[in-house]
C-alpha cells in the first residue's frame, strides 16, 4: 500500500494549484457550463486546454493539449479542481462520448473537422440513442434510414435527448440494414440539428423541468459520408462510448462534494433548540453514508491502481454505477429528511433551501439510477460478467423448450 503519487507528481500538483489560484477569478459559475456554454465558460475552457487542464490527452492537431495519457495527472487535476471548488473543463456528451468515439473510430477528416470545435464549446452535440421502444434493450431501436439518391433518409423518434434544443449536431443510432440481425443492422450517423425534418419537443420530468427532449425525424436527409464506422457497425461504434458514459456517472469527487454539502446543511439547519446534526437518528444516518462514501472513494483508488498496473477494473469497476447513483440518491434523501417539513419546499417557495436543489437532486438522481443502464441491468451485468452466473435463457430458447415440452 503506497498512497504517495511520488515527487514528480507532487510537483505537478503544485503547478495545478498555482494555476487555479492565479486564474480562478476567470472561472464561470457552474450554471454557465450548461448545455449551451456561456462565453465566459467557453473562454475558461480555452484557457484550460491551453494549460493542459482540459482535453489533456487529445492530440494537438485536433485541438487538444497533446499530453501523454497519465492517469495520475488526470486524477490530480480532478482532485485539485474539486478541492478548490473551481469548475474544471466542459463536460458534455460531445466531449465525453463523441470525441473519444471519433478518436477511436472516426476518419482523419472527421477528426479534423469535429474534435476541435467540440472541445472548445463551439459545437454542442446531443445523443440520439434511446427510443420509446428501445431503452434497456437499446438494440431494438426502430428509427430507420433508407437510401435515396445517395443520401440517408431518416424517419423515427428518439427520446432522452438531453441538450437537443441547444445542440448544433447529433450523433445518432439508426437502423440502416432492415434485414440484418438486430445488432448488425445499425449505423452511427452524425448530422446537423438544423437539418429539415427534425422536431424537438421538451420532455418534462418529475422534477418539473425539461432536462430531456423527444426528437422526431421526418424524412431527414443526411449525406452518406456522415457516418462513423461502416454501415451496420453502429452498435459496436456506440458501445465504445457507452463505457465512457458509465465511467462518467461514477465520480468519487462528486459524491464527496455532495456529502460535504449535506454535512454543512445538517450543521446549519436549526431543529428546535439545536441543529439537525444534533438529532441522534439523523446523525447516525449521516455517519453511515459517510462510511459508504469513504468505501467508494477507496474503491476508486483501487480501480486507479489497477489501471496503473494495466489490469482491468474487474468487479471494483462493474459496481461503480449501481453503487454511486444509489448513494448519491441516499445523500439527497437524508438532506430532505434533515429539513423536516421544510424539505418539501420547491418551485422557489419562500423558505426554500439552496434553490430547491436537494429535492431536484433527489428526483433527478432517481433518473440517473434508471438512465445509462438501469439498476436492474447493472445487476445483470455484475452477476453475468462479474460473478459468471448463468445467463437468462433467450426468449427463443424458452419458446423452443416449451414446444419440446408440449
Amino acid at each position: 500500500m503506497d498512497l504517495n503519487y511520488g515527487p514528480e507528481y507532487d510537483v505537478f500538483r503544485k503547478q495545478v494549484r498555482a494555476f487555479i489560484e492565479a486564474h480562478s477569478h476567470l472561472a464561470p459559475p457552474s450554471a454557465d457550463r450548461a448545455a449551451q456554454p456561456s462565453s465566459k465558460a467557453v473562454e475558461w475552457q480555452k484557457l484550460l486546454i491551453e494549460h493542459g487542464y482540459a482535453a489533456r490527452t487529445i492530440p494537438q492537431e485536433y485541438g487538444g493539449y497533446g499530453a501523454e495519457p497519465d492517469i495520475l495527472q488526470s486524477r490530480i487535476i480532478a482532485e485539485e479542481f474539486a478541492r478548490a471548488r473551481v469548475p474544471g473543463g466542459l463536460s458534455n456528451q460531445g466531449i465525453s462520448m463523441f470525441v473519444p468515439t471519433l478518436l477511436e473510430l472516426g476518419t482523419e477528416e472527421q477528426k479534423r473537422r469535429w474534435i476541435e470545435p467540440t472541445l472548445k464549446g463551439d459545437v454542442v452535440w446531443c445523443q440520439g440513442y434511446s427510443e420509446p421502444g428501445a431503452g434497456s434493450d437499446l438494440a431494438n431501436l426502430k428509427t430507420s434510414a433508407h437510401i435515396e439518391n445517395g443520401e440517408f433518409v431518416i424517419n423515427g423518434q428518439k427520446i432522452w435527448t438531453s441538450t437537443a434544443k441547444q445542440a448544433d449536431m447529433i450523433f445518432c443510432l439508426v437502423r440502416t440494414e432492415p434485414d440484418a440481425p438486430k445488432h448488425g443492422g445499425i449505423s452511427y450517423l452524425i448530422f446537423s440539428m438544423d437539418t429539415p425534418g427534425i422536431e424537438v419537443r421538451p420532455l418534462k420530468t418529475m422534477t418539473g423541468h425539461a432536462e430531456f427532449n423527444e426528437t422526431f425525424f421526418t424524412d431527414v436527409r443526411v449525406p452518406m459520408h456522415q457516418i462513423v464506422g461502416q454501415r451496420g457497425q453502429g452498435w459496436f461504434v456506440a458501445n465504445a462510448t457507452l463505457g465512457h458514459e458509465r465511467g462518467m456517472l461514477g465520480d468519487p469527487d462528486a459524491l464527496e462534494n455532495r456529502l460535504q454539502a449535506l454535512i454543512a446543511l445538517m450543521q446549519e439547519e436549526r431543529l428546535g433548540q439545536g441543529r439537525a446534526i444534533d438529532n441522534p437518528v439523523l446523525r447516525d444516518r449521516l455517519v453511515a453514508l459517510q462510511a459508504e462514501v469513504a468505501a467508494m472513494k477507496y474503491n476508486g483508488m483501487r480501480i486507479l491502481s489497477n489501471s496503473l498496473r494495466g489490469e482491468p477494473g474487474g468487479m471494483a469497476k462493474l459496481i461503480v454505477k449501481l453503487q454511486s447513483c444509489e448513494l448519491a440518491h441516499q445523500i439527497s434523501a437524508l438532506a430532505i429528511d434533515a429539513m423536516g417539513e421544510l424539505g418539501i419546499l420547491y418551485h422557489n417557495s419562500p423558505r426554500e433551501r439552496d434553490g430547491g436543489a436537494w429535492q431536484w437532486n433527489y428526483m433527478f438522481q432517481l433518473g440517473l439510477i434508471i438512465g445509462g443502464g438501469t439498476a436492474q441491468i447493472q445487476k445483470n451485468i455484475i452477476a453475468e460478467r462479474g460473478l459468471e452466473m448463468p445467463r437468462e435463457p433467450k426468449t427463443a430458447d424458452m419458446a423452443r423448450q416449451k414446444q419440446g415440452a408440449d
Partner: protein
Amino acid sequence: MDFGLSQDQQMLRDAVSRCLADSSPLSHVRECAERDNPLSDQVLQALNDLGVAGMLVPEEHGGLGMTLLDAAVVAEQLGYAVAPVPFLASQVLAPIALRDAGNEEQKAHWLPKIASGEARIGVAISETIEVRDGAGVSSAAGKLNGTALYALDFEGADAYIVADSGSRLHLLGAKASGLEAIALTTIDRTRSVGELRFDGAEAEPLADDGGATVARLRDAGRVILAADSLGAGQAMIEKAVDYAGQREQFGRLIGSFQAVKHMCAEMAAQHEPCRSLVWYAAHAFDAVPNEASLVACHAKSHTAEVYRFVARTSTEVHGGMGFTDLLGLHYWFKRIGFDRQVLGGPEAVRAEAAALQGWTKAA
C-alpha cells in the same frame, strides 16, 4: 502509488489460505464447535508454523514487526475459513498493548512468548465502549475489583489484559487469586469469550497514557473484525453463486433467474467497496494516524451492515438447505454475527465516529 496489497502481502494471503484449507476444513470446524473449548490447537500450530503468532511483535522481541494491514490479510482468511483459532486478542491486541504501553520487563517477559506461540493473552476492553449489566472494573493499589465481560480469546489464555473504568490497562495471570473466569457461550462456536470477575485480584498496570492505548486497541480490533467479516462474506457470496449455478428448479439453474441473480449482484456490489475500505483502515492504523480512528469506525460499522445483509441473503439463495446444519453455512452466518456485535455494534461505533468529528455536543 499503489492502492492494494504488496507482493509480500499477497504471498502471505495465499500461504494462510492454503494452510487453513489443509488444517481447518469444515469437518474440523464442526468437531471443534462441539467441544466446550472450541479453539483448535492443530490449526493454531499450523498458523504458528507460518509465523502468524509473532506478526505484530516487534523484531527486537523475537517477532516479525509487521503492520495491521498484514494482520488484516490474515484475519480475512480466518473469516473465510471460519477458523476456530484465537487471533484478535492474543495475536493482535495483546502485542499492540504490550508494545505500546508495556514496561521493559513486561515486554521482555511476554512478547517473545507471544511470538513463539508459548503464551496467549486474552483481552477485555468492552466496558470502554459500552457498559452492559453494570459491568466495569475499578483499580486501586494494584488490585482490581468488578467485572469485565467479553474477554476475547478467553479459553487457554495464560494471562489477560483488562481495561479499567479509567481506560487504563492492567495485566494479570489467568490463575491470579481473586480472579474468577467464566466462559460465555455465543452463537459463534469458532471463537471463545468469557467473563472475568475480580475480587481484589492483583494485577500489573500498563502505562498510564490517558486511554491512548485502549483507543488504539479499539481501532485495531475493529479493523480486524471488519477484515474477518470481509473474508466470511466473500465465502458466503462464493457459496451462494456456486449453489445457484448447480441447483435446478423449474427446469433451469436457479442462478439464471433474475430474482436470484440480483440477490448475488447486490451482495457483490456491497461487498466489493468494503475490501478497499478495510485495506485503507488497516493501512491508516500504522501510516495515517490522524485518520485511523475515524476510518476504523467506518470500516467496522459499514462492514457490520453489509455482511449482515450478505449473511442473510446468501442463506436465502441456498433456500431450505441454507437453513439446515448440513451445509454448515451457519458457521459463517454466526461468525459475521459475532463480528458485528463485538467492540461496538454499528450504532455505537457511528456515535463514536460522530463524536470524533465534533458532531456531538458534549454530553
